[in-house]
Every structure is written in C-alpha cells, then in structure tokens.
C-alpha cells in the first residue's frame, strides 16, 4: 500500500493520482514532515525526474505513490503543496 493509494482510497482531497501510481503525473506531491523524512525513504530516479517539473519543489518533496506504507510510518505527517489545494 502506498501513501497515494491510501489517500485516494479514502478520498483525501488534493491527492489525485492521475497516473494510477506509475510515478508519471506528479499529482500526489507531498511534503514529508521533518520528523519522518528518514523513515519515508529516499526519492527514486523516476521520482526525481517528475519532481523536477513541479512548481513548488522543496527539500522534503516526495511523490506519495513512491512512499510505501508500513508500521514504521504509522502516524507520519505530510503536507500538501498549495497547487494541490
């Protein structure tokens, strides 16, 4: 289960996931809270490419479809960029 899928399954507004989790649309861009960034892992190569195109890139930017949820991430806090509000 990815963070994107968890959000879209629960109709969280602002996470669209247009490409269905193929790391190909950047509509599930999130900012991972500093306390969680290590546990959330590092960007994949294709994720880096896609994040290059977003208007509001930050150091803690991730694509939610590339963040796999497990017990370690229980309680993780992420924020949405303004463009996805």
């Amino acid at each position, binding site marked *: 289960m990815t963070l994107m899928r968890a959000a879209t399954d629960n109709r969280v507004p602002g996470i*669209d*996931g*247009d*490409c*269905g989790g*193929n*790391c*190909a*649309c*950047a*509509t599930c861009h999130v900012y991972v809270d500093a306390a969680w960034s290590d546990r959330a892992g590092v960007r994949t190569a*294709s994720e880096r*490419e*896609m994040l*290059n*195109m977003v*208007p*509001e890139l930050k150091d803690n930017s991730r694509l939610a479809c590339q963040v796999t949820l497990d017990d370690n991430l229980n309680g993780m806090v992420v924020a949405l*960029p*303004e*463009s996805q*509000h």
Partner: protein
Amino acid sequence: MKPAITAVNTPESTTQIAAARARVAALDLSQLNPADPQGFVDDTVGYVFERLRHEDPVHRSHSPVPGIDSYWSITRYQDIMQVDTRPDIYSSESGITLMDFPPGDDQQLKMFIAMDPPKHDEQRRAVNPIVAPANLKNWHDLIRERTCRVLDTLPRNETFDWVDKVSIELTTYMLATLFDFPLDDRRLLTYWSDISTANKLTNPDAPEPEVRMAELRKMLSYFTRLWNERVNVAPRSDLVSMLAHGPATRNMGPLEYMGNLVLLIVGGNDTTRNSMTGGLLALDNNPQEMAKLRANPTLIESMVSEIIRWQTPLAYMRRTALADTELGGKQIGKDDKLAMWYLSGNRDESAIAEPDRFIIDRAKPRQHLSFGFGIHRCVGNRLAELQLKILWEEILRRFEVIEVMGEPIRVRSSFVRGFSKLPVRIRC
C-alpha cells in the same frame, strides 16, 4: 453522418456505425494506417483503433505519405504508459509528430517538448512558473469575467459557429494573457497556431511549406519585439519574459525561440479550444448526461476530465527508439518511430470501464491519457481544466438549451483532433 466515436443510438447511426466497422474489418491488417487524416475528418478512426487493440495492439503501420512512411502504432493504455514513462528508451529528440523532414530543414522546429533530459528539463523549468498557484489564482477572476462577457454577447435564437465565437475567442484571450500579448492582435495567435500545425503533405488545403515558414518568421519577428522589450527590464510573470530571463532559454537562437513559441501557442490554444467544442457536442449527443449535469452542477469537475478524455485533442505523440527493444511482444528496432495513440488508449476497455460511453460521473475520471504521462506531461493541464470548468459553470447559469444545428466540420489532421466549425443555436 453522426460522429462515430460518439455513443449514439438512432437507427440511422447504428447502420452507419455497422457499415464503417465492416469497411475496417474487410481490410488486411497491414493496410490499417491510423495516421490517415481521412479517418479523423469522418471520425471513423475509432474503428481502426478498436480492431488494432484487439488484434494487433503494437502494430507496424505504413503511410503512403513521404516523411511518415513506416511507424509503430501503440494502441493500448498500458503500452502507451510504458513508452511515455521511458524517455531513456523512447526519445523525443527526433520530433513529436510522425512527419520527418530532411536533415537541416527549418521545418523541423526545435522546442522543449521535442528534447530529452537534461535540456528538456532545463527549458521546461523556465516556463513552469506560468502555472504556479499564485498565477492560477490571479487568472481565476479574469477567466470568469471574460467567459461571462463572451457568453453574454452570443446571438440568441439564431445559428452561429461555436468554434469561432466561443472556443477560439476564449482560448485566444487566455493565450494572449499568458504571453502578455497585445489583446487587439490576439487573433494572430489563432492564425499562427493553425499555420504551425498545417501540413501540405496530409492536407491539400494547407499552405505551401515556404508560405508556412514565411508566416512563422513573421510570428518570430513580432515576438522578437516583445522579447526585446522585456529582456532588459525586471522579470515578469508572462511567458515571453520567462523565456527571455530563464538561464536555460535566454541564449536560445531564433529558430529555437520560434519552436518554443509554436509549442506554447499550439499547446495553449488548439487543445482547450477543441475540448470546448467537443464537450458541447458530446453533451448534445448524450442528452441523459446533460440532464444529469443540469440536475447536479457539482458534476462539472468530473465532467471536465471526461470531456478531455472523450475529445483527446492531441490524438498521439511520437517517440523514436534509441535502441533495439521489445514492446508488447514485438521487436522494436533502433530508430523506429512510434505513435502513442492517446485517442486509442483512452478507449481501451482493459484500462477504462465502458470507454465508448461519455459518462460525466464515471469513477476515476482523471485517469486518462490526454495530457500524456511522464516528464512531457502537459504543463498547462490545471489551467485547461480551470477554463473548461468556468465555461460550463457560466453556460449552466445562462442557457437552458444549446442545440447543435448541423454536423461539425473536423480538422484534417491525425495529430490535432479538432473542429473547424460547429453550428449551434441558443434557444431562449
């Protein structure tokens, strides 16, 4: 003849659909050439795609047009996704349309959509801020004000052309704003957009290549004046200023500037224009969906995505293989060209439920291919959706009935899937 990709149930259209399907079924597979613009003029290309998706989804297609020649037709959603997300294998450097020009021919325009990383990424970043949230917010009121003005001045109880009076007018206004282009000259943008996609080899009515290039040079000189006005003053939030100041674009040569202008003009103009027309036509052909919409205007947002899927205003994008590879069980050779037929992927029943029906409240309406996927995904997708959303909000507020009064005239192109005319009447 009723548009064939549209779901219609009259006895007359059912016979015509059966006849068109039979004509396609009678052909040998090797004769199927979706790039033939005739299939777009009479809107029968959907039957070619239907057959290819079932019988030969990665298809070696042959065009009699010199410069197009042989190419692969990729017709299924998942295969298209695979090609679109592997720019390291499937390059854009040789162009995004199937036509090849002799090396050194000026007609092969340089533009960032026809580049691979890293240069693509650098140039695209120069114009990305055009769709930053602050800009979108600023335009929201402006788009609504103009949409209201355009709709309020439409003729009532008489037939007029929706393409000219609404679709072109609204998208050209928007484009002029994005460029901070003199509003009184805005129809020049429409003209240049049409000229840049015109191709004599596939459309006998198109201008000769020399005439086309001469017109594009006039466009370049107009825009060079705007560049010169803006390059020596502080950066502003219009596309010309962004290109003139962007580190990756400020040293572009004239032909590269021309190419990127063509990209931004066509990308911001032809696409939304044809979704504005295609949406009206789709609702006219599907009265039950119109009734749904009138009963529940909150469906506008999902309808906008459905309209963009339904229309697929750019029918394909081309890629070129950088190495021998395999796709859908076929051996793709180095330098082979491929057409990712978004129009076909958007009708693929293995990815989209009931794809041949126009359903404004379908589940997952945003999962369509019309914006492309991967690093070349449409820069202006949010803006396009915003324009369409406001248009439909204001239509619903004003008009009870907009009747389509005759058959649309479709553009003779397998790339831009669009309309040159749609006669309509507002009854009140």
